[in-house]
């Protein structure tokens, strides 16, 4: 149930991983419940987001993860990122793990873009000098120009996400966990993001990409994992996995080619 940090950089292991979430509007428990020692009756039963999932990914692999809404894709990424613990099983990612789960989340809105780069870098365990080394590249990548000195509160949503991606893309990841965030900015910027991810893969990073965009997965991943109802139902080459996925989804039409 603990997060294993002894793996080789870029290696990912999930063993018999299971995780359930209780579905409640108010997420905290009240003291009364604790003192009475029982949970509120009624409400939906816990959702089993991952059921006995085992997965071993070698350094440098590129893995796409697909499935219906609620199949457990995002939960798997959060578990891999070490943000949510498992109920049972083992999980671990080796080396620097960079998760692009909520780009720009946690930006201090009154801080300038530049200050947020430092805060976000620090959040991922970087020290001042390491961030300074990357500062120019991040600013250039974000295409924010002079806006980098303006408070983030004044940014458009596109600028916000661009800065978020630019930071995450320059953290020297051994493992990249990406969740549906490539719809960042305009088409030109999206291409730039894809190119940047390809660069990181070429440099040896492991990629786990969750997306509903089949053609994006075909372009960037070699291996496909299909999840359904929290279970792994397919694990293999993308070429074989995509037809399986489309049959599962009931969309038998041929895969859109890029």
């Amino acid at each position, binding site marked *: 149930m603990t997060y294993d940090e002894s793996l080789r950089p870029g290696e990912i292991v999930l063993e018999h991983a299971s995780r359930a979430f209780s579905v409640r509007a108010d997420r*905290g428990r009240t003291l009364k419940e604790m003192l009475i020692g029982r949970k509120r009756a009624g409400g939906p039963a816990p959702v089993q987001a991952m059921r006995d999932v085992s997965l071993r990914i070698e350094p440098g692999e590129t893995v796409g993860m697909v499935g219906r809404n609620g199949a457990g894709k995002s939960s798997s990424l959060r578990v891999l990122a070490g943000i949510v613990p498992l109920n049972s099983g083992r999980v671990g990612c080796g080396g620097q793990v960079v998760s692009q789960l909520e780009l720009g989340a946690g930006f201090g809105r009154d801080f300038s873009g530049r200050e947020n780069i430092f805060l976000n870098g*620090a959040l991922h*365990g970087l020290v*001042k000098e390491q961030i300074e080394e990357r500062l120019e590249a991040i600013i250039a990548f974000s295409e924010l120009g002079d806006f980098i000195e303006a408070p983030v509160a004044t940014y458009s949503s596109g600028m916000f996400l661009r800065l978020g991606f630019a930071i995450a893309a320059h953290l020297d990841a051994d493992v990249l966990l990406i969740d549906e965030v490539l719809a960042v900015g305009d088409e030109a910027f999206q291409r730039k993001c894809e190119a940047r991810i390809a660069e990181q893969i070429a440099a040896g990073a492991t990629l786990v990409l969750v997306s509903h965009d089949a053609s994006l997965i075909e372009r960037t991943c070699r291996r496909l994992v299909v999840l359904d109802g929290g279970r792994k139902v397919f694990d293999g080459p993308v070429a074989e996995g995509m037809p399986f996925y489309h049959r599962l989804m009931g969309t038998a039409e041929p895969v859109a080619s890029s």
Partner: protein
Amino acid sequence: MAHRYLFEQMVRRELRQKYRGSALGVLWYLINPLVLMGAYYLMFGVIFDQASEPDYPLFLLVGLVVWVFFNQAVMSAAPSLLDQGVLIRKARFPREIIPASVVSVQLVTFLALIALLAPITIAIRGTLDVALLLLPFVLACLFAFILGLAFAVSILHAYFRDVAPILSAALLPWFFLSPIFFRPQSITEQATARFVLEWVNPIAPYIGAIRDVIYGGVVPSAPQLTYVVVMAAVVLAGGHRLFRRLQGELAVVV
């Protein structure tokens, strides 16, 4: 300490965000306690002057400044994990940094107030003594004690949202039962009551020890010093352990 830089950034964030857009900015951190101290000084030092202690206003202010630190730190630590929920859901970093940075910001305020108050008190009272050398040590113990409480309170509040309201209700009577306006021995002859006021209230020995050093110019009693050290160690270790045990589900509950 790979995350020292993150801690530094979080402290800055805390300092900047709380009073954003206000003309006085971080000065509010000093103004609030100063106003509170001024009000209590007026109330109990002038209007209801008991005059049981010489230079009563100074007696009162030294105790009050310790209480304000305790009160502010605990009350701002309680909701801190919920406030930073987005960061907790986004990245993996030691969650202790959040309450620790909140308490550290309050520590800075507290030290500024002490730096203001101590020289005045020592000059007026003429209490410059080698005992003063104990001050940094006692303050460090106080910080450890409050940090331990902050760990416990913040993690408990993340799971049980009643914790902060209960605390804010408890802190008011607690304030009047603490030896800020009086010495326990000067308001009661009863041994049990004195014992309770002096030793059951965990903040009382800290107030007593700091007052001994600054206002009294004497070394605190051995039992008091022992209490201050042992309580700091126990609360810090216990609070941190509780935090560690409960922090797993944080990203789910905040």
